[in-house]
């Protein structure tokens, strides 16, 4: 079989990943998603070899195509909620770790949860969705860089628009507005909770990955090397990086 050039391969891979991310969010079981992915990827590749466009396969509206297929798979409400658990773990970890930093740095027994937190989480969630679904633009925008730039431009535009509306309506969004406050025992409890949820989530992510890789257990090893852990490792890396960035911002704000 002929090899596709890197740009076309990226177009296919981004489009397929956008569909997979959508199906995941819609609650389609992982073993079904892996089959759908396989079929779509192979079809797109073969269509390109035969001189057809990506649009000839997924139509002019790729999200509509992904939704049409998802509907026929009878998605379950609970299967897709791993994403929500991941979000909960991230929120808990970020809040509890920054609360701990604040308790230690300012020697204050009281932690104040300001409006900055929900703002950060909403913006991050929105950006994450845009970055994932930029792949739906693959049939129209050929290079990955252009798709990413467009996703970022949409994101920046939405944030600026939101801030403009806020100013125009005179709401004067205050990031230091205190929404909740609690003392250190609650922080300790939240830390324990976030660690417990993190492990639960990790177990579910790795279990899902093992299922997709066709292995029986997370601890299953092949030639003394763990198999199919790429997604789990990626999840831990991204998770740690995002919590660390927010903690760093809080630490910086405390020092300044």
């Amino acid at each position, binding site marked *: *079989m002929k090899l596709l050039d890197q740009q076309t391969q990226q177009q296919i891979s981004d489009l397929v990943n956008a569909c997979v991310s959508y199906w995941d969010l819609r609650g389609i079981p992982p073993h079904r998603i892996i*089959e*759908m992915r*396989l*079929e*779509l990827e*192979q*079809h797109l590749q*073969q*269509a390109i070899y035969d001189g*057809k466009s990506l649009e*000839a*396969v*997924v*139509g*002019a509206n790729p999200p509509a*195509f992904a939704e*049409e*297929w998802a*509907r*026929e*798979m*009878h998605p379950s409400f609970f299967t897709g909620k791993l994403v929500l658990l991941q979000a909960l773990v991230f929120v808990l970890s970020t809040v509890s770790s920054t609360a701990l930093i604040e308790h230690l740095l300012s020697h204050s027994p009281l932690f104040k949860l300001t409006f900055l937190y929900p703002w950060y989480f909403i913006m991050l969630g929105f950006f994450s969705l845009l970055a994932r679904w930029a792949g739906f633009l693959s049939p129209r925008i050929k290079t990955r860089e252009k798709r990413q730039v467009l996703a970022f431009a949409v994101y920046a535009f939405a944030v600026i628009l939101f801030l403009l509306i806020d100013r125009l309506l005179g709401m004067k969004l205050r990031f230091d507005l205190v929404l909740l406050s609690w003392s250190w025992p609650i922080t300790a409890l939240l830390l324990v909770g976030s660690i417990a949820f993190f492990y639960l989530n990790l177990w579910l992510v790795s279990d899902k990955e093992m299922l997709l890789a066709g292995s029986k257990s997370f601890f299953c090893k092949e030639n003394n090397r763990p198999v199919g852990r790429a997604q789990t490792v990626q999840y831990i890396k991204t998770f740690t990086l995002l919590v660390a960035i927010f903690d760093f911002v809080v630490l910086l704000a405390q020092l300044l």
Partner: protein
Amino acid sequence: MDTRSTQLLKGTLDMCLLATIARRPCYGYEMVQQLAQQGLDLVSEGSIYPLLSRLQQNGYIESYLVPSNDGPKRKYYRLLPNGAKQLAQWQAEWEKFAHSVEQVLKGDGLDEAVRSTNTTTDLRSR
């Protein structure tokens, strides 16, 4: 392919897919190629997959993975007994429908019906 043909194909695509699979087990892209060879070009080739999923959920077809020389395994579909029954029923419905449409287009049935109605009206008026 013009819009009317697209609409017609949309309404009968599940039946065409079932008939294609009934001839021999095949994978998605193969089905699209077979349909194209028979003059049925799809506007969006991927539209076969939701339909294949529906046919599978209804128990008309089943899928299985076959190792491929070109790379990862391919997902093939084959007909189940329920699918064969359903295809026979759809074929009968389609033949009846196509026959009726043909009659309308040629005006055969209508001529006879109009003639008999006119005759009855003439007799009554006498």
